[in-house]
């Protein structure tokens, strides 16, 4: 447990002339669930996109399993086992559910692919029932399940989840979080970005608070859960 699976050291990145991240450093260890919480606009999504190579790293580095990720193209980063389930899910709405999963499983050996996809249908029966339908016909929560299933099929060393509960009704939020808990239980390391801070912190082994592009707090999930500073990061000092 001591070796870091992902080691991020002083990453700066941003868009055009705007720097959004001003030196982020953090770690995720094998089998760990780490949450990043923070208000909107703090840079959480930018951080994940930078890890995945969609936003260029300006300085600093990210190392997965001892191999440097920064500077690689997105598909190469995926090949190293860093899989992101992006904000807004980005399912391919015109393609069928089966095809979305096939794409997720593209790197699984052909012989095991069928079984892997079927196991997802078992886990998410609602997907299995509608496998031939276009993914766009699913509801928001179902689309999120599809996106997570698709991410898991890529056999992640580390799964990045960006706001998986966004826009979902409370009942569905609970369902998604129980899925995340299951994923962690199988030993896959998870880096979870959430605005639903309380649930994310309650679930996390460790967590970081991101404010305006900097990490301002870190600790175990339960430590941070009851820190007033966390609430302040969201609602300001009036709360």
């Amino acid at each position, binding site marked *: 447990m001591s070796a870091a699976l992902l080691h991020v050291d002083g990453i700066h990145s941003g868009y055009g*002339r*705007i720097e959004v991240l001003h030196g982020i450093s953090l770690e995720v260890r094998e089998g760990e669930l780490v949450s990043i919480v923070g*208000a*909107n*606009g703090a840079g959480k999504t930018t951080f994940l996109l930078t890890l995945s190579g969609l936003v260029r790293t300006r300085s600093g580095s990210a190392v997965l399993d001892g191999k440097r990720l920064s500077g690689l193209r997105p598909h190469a980063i995926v090949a190293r086992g860093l899989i992101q389930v992006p904000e807004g899910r980005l399912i391919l709405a015109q393609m069928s559910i089966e095809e979305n999963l096939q794409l997720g499983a593209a790197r699984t050996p052909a012989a095991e692919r069928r079984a892997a996809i079927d196991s997802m249908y078992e886990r998410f029966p609602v997907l299995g029932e509608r496998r031939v339908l276009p993914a766009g016909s699913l*509801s*928001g929560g179902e689309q999120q399940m599809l996106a997570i299933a698709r991410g898991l099929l890529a056999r992640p060393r580390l799964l990045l989840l960006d*706001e998986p*509960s*966004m*826009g979902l*009704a*409370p009942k569905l*939020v*609970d*369902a998604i*979080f*129980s899925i995340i*808990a299951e994923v962690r239980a199988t030993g896959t390391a998870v880096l979870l970005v959430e*605005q*639903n*801070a*309380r*649930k*994310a912190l*309650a*679930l996390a082994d460790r967590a970081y608070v991101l404010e*305006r592009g900097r990490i301002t707090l870190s600790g175990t999930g339960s430590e941070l*859960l009851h820190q007033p500073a966390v*609430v302040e990061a*969201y*609602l*300001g*000092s*009036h*709360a």
Partner: protein
Amino acid sequence: MSVLHYRDVGVNFGGVHALHGVSFDVQSGHVVGLIGPNGAGKTTLINVTTGVVAPTTGSVTLDDMPLSGRRQYQIARVGVARTYQNIRLFPRMTAIDNVVVGATRIRHDPDLGAFVFLPSVRRARIELQEHARYLLHRVGVPRDEWDTVASVMPYGSQRRLEIARALAMRPRVLLLDEPAAGMNPAETANLQALIRSIAKEDVAVMLVEHDMPLVMGTCDQVAVLNFGELIATGTPAEVSRDPAVVEAYLGSEALP
């Protein structure tokens, strides 16, 4: 003296309720904060107001004039101005030109006058540019950036320029969509003063913002959206004590 009325506004995107039964008023001279978690429907409400999205149910009226059903440019012409969450300036125009375009619809000098060098047209143009400079000064765009094309201005200046451009329309209603995003605390404090001073000129301001200190410090009223529904309205203090609001933002702790 209320200006902008939302009555039972609902929007459906292919079966998904983006907004549902939203009713509240915005009075001129007041700043109303519109808050809620991501995906709660805040930007959709702005889009309904400005005619980008047609409401599925309910109505938006400005005084007694229904806005729903009108085109975007028609709504702008009756005095509804906005800024954008993802800045939408005219990227290859200078800061001053951006503001002057904002005033396009309120000018009344004859277009043909420009071709015969009519002195009054020239004067009107100079006045317009004067006014643009005044507005840029007022929102706090540094003087040396006034003649810079918008796309290369610093981020904070772009945000302020958007406000100046909206003000050039002399709006009766001003909708600000996350104006403080990307600003530092000092800039945010200036923004707060600016918004207050705009409201003082009898403009109804609606502020969508995640920066809670700004919302709490600026707004007369706060409306909270969650899953497309209005879950609370009231003064900032009332709202921030409302358990439903805290829950909406931070979620419940309970794990399934």
